[in-house]
Structures are given as structure tokens and as C-alpha cells.
């Protein structure tokens, strides 16, 4: 990697989004800062492996998630939220405008979620990653990502807008997106 794309340039360009990602993953400022620093430390050691500078952001996000998974191991990673009971459709939102969401409450909801659902939600709402990008980050098929996102969103609605829950006729079973990979369910 040339000096023009040196590590300092990477830090300047990506430290803020990495920190936000780390914060949403880990739930605390201290862990988020450690993860962000360690990510760049690791990037320094493996800078020669970064062949495409335009992929740097995805590369750094991937490093950060791996560090996080390594840290929390199995204890923190798997949570006992029964997503199965929610189905995968967000309930139809009411016609009145949604109240502003408290970022702290959102974090509590994320903390209680299994990492396999938390990560795609965070990446999705950061809006810079396509479904395909998220699938690559997590090493899962794109259909799995879409399925987890649908269920993760339903969970967020359930947690953040419980008063808006109401009986809503379930739609007939979903069919596959034509031209896109099959939507699958659960862990591959």
C-alpha cells in the first residue's frame, strides 16, 4: 500500500464510522474505543493484504467484527431472544407519525439481540452497505442476511413501539425474490 493511502489516511477517513459501529456492537464507549484502536493496530500489521484501497472500509469493518467476536466469545454472542415468536414482518405501522427513538433504548434492544441478528441490523441502518456487502462481511448467503434483517426489524418494532402492536393479518407465506438468491431462514 502506497503512502498516499497510508494508515493515517485510513484513520482519518474511517475512525468515526468504525467507532459508531463498535459502539452499537459492544454497547459501551470504552469497549467501542478499544475495538476501534485495536482495529487500526491490526490493520497496521496487515496493511500489505489490502489490495483494493476502495474496499478499505469493508475490510476495516470486518477486522473490527472479528475482534469483537474474539473478545466476547460465545458467552455474550448468543442471546435468548425468541425471534421465532415474532415472525418476520414488521407490523404495519400506525398512520400517526412515529415518535423519535431514544438511541439509548435502541442500544438496550440491540444488546439483548443475538450477534447474528445485531450485526446485519447495524450495517443495514448505517446505509452504506448493500445486502451483498453485509453477506460478505458475515460470510453468509445474501438470503440469510435478508431473512435475519426482516426478523430483526420485527423485533425492533416489538421492542421500541410496543404500543403500536396490533392484530395484523399475516400475509401468505413469502415467495423467493425473483432474480435474487433464495430467502432462507436461520443460520446456514
Amino acid at each position, binding site marked *: 500500500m502506497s503512502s498516499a493511502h497510508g494508515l493515517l489516511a485510513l484513520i482519518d477517513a474511517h475512525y468515526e464510522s468504525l467507532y459508531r459501529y463498535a459502539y*452499537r456492537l459492544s454497547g459501551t464507549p470504552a469497549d467501542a474505543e478499544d475495538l476501534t484502536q485495536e482495529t487500526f493496530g491490526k490493520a497496521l500489521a496487515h496493511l500489505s493484504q489490502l489490495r483494493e484501497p476502495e474496499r478499505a472500509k469493508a475490510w476495516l469493518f470486518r477486522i473490527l467484527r472479528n475482534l469483537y467476536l474474539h473478545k466476547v466469545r460465545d458467552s455474550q454472542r448468543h442471546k435468548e431472544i425468541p425471534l421465532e415468536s415474532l415472525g418476520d414482518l414488521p407490523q404495519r*405501522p400506525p398512520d400517526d407519525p412515529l415518535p423519535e427513538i431514544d438511541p439509548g433504548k*435502541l442500544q438496550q434492544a440491540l444488546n439483548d439481540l443475538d450477534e447474528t441478528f445485531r450485526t446485519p441490523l447495524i450495517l443495514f441502518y448505517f446505509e452504506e452497505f448493500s445486502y451483498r456487502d453485509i453477506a460478505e462481511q458475515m460470510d453468509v448467503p445474501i438470503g440469510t442476511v435478508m431473512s435475519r434483517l426482516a426478523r430483526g426489524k420485527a423485533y425492533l418494532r416489538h421492542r421500541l413501539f410496543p404500543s403500536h402492536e396490533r392484530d395484523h393479518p399475516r400475509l401468505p407465506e413469502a415467495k423467493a425474490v425473483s432474480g435474487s438468491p433464495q430467502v432462507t431462514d436461520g443460520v446456514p
Partner: protein
Amino acid sequence: MECRDAQFYLRWQRHATDELGAEVTTALRQHLAQCPVCAAESQALLAFDKAIARAMKAVPVPPALRDRIRTHVATQRGARLRVQLYRTAVSVAAAVVLVLLGLSIFSSTRPRVDPQMLAELADDQLHRPDDYIQNWLIAQKLPTELPHQFDWELVTHRGFDDVQGLKVPVIVFTTPDGRDFAKVYIFRKDGRFDMRDLHAGQASRASADVYDTPHAVYVIVYTGGPRGLQRFLTNRPPGGPAT
């Protein structure tokens, strides 16, 4: 497209991107245009996504985080370099020790001249001149910004110059043809020098500009005429250096 298909695809539509493919997106749009029920559902789902996205990104970033990361990385770089040098040293140590013992001049107190280490430092400078300077500035606890955007590729030296009997940090830039140079002296505001009322200087072939900043005074000495400094900056005018 029918309502049940539209409702299915609505789950994955996104505000800014079309990830469902042109065919599905077109059909979905046409359906939403003539079906108020699905259109309302679409609006509500997008509003939900927007609200979550806003909250998701509302994470305040600590103001000094960038500097802490830079320091962390600089420290780690130093450590990595020392490990490399240590390994090199260990690999030649046995032979060196034997030779020195044979010559009876072994001394454990004096640092040894280490050409390998000096070569590796030069390598470092060549490969990442910006890091080379930035890390040095961080190590000296000096601001990492200089008064101008200098072209790091032109750095030939950084270290200390004797100025009126005191050591002063200096960065030296040299033009590719080797004829002209610019020296950036960094005077800390630590009371060692009297820095009241400083003015630019001018000699027959060199100029000295003064930049007073909150943490340090920079004196930039350069050759090549009144516009000679331009040759060392990244935003120098195209079509060759000024003379």
C-alpha cells in the same frame, strides 16, 4: 404486480438504493402508484427505517479519539520496528559477540553502530514518508499539522539542529533535482527562546518565513526565490515548480 407480492417486496425496499433489481422495482413502483393501501404501507415502513437509522447513527464520537488512535498506532509501529530490529540483532549477535571477544574490545555499555537499523529506518522513510514524519512529530509531542500542506515525498531528513546552542526539531525537504531545500524549524513555546515580535528574514539566496501558532512558532527557511516555498507544497501550481 398484486398486493401480496408488493407487500412481500416492501420488506426489503430501501430509501436510497435499488437492490431488488430493475424489474421488481419498476413493477413495485407501478403498483404503489395505483394502490393506496400498499403505498401507505410503503411510506410507513420507510418512515420506520428512517427513524431507526437516525437513532442508530446517533453515537457521539469522543473529540480526542482520533489523536488517541494515532498515538496508539504510532506506539505500535515503534514496537513492531523494535521487534524487527531485535530479531535482526539476535540473529547476528552470536557472531558479533565471538568476533568482539576475540578482539577483546567487547563492551556492554556502549551502543553499537547498527547499519542494519539505519537501513531499515531509511526504508521506512521511503515507503511511508507521511507516517515517518507524523509518527516522529507525535513522538516529539509536537502538533502533527504544519503551517502548509507539505509534500511528504520530498522529505529528506527530520531531526534536531543546533540553533544558538539549543537543539531545535527540524524537518528538511529537498527538491527532486537536489538544488533547493526548505527547512521547517519548530520552536516550542516552552520559554527556552525569546519569541516576541518575530519578523521574516531574507538573505541573498534564502528566505525565512515565521508562523506563530498557539503551540509553536514555525520558522520556514527555503531557497529558490520568493516563491521557492511553493515547490515543496502539495497544492503547488501545475506546469512545474515556481522559480
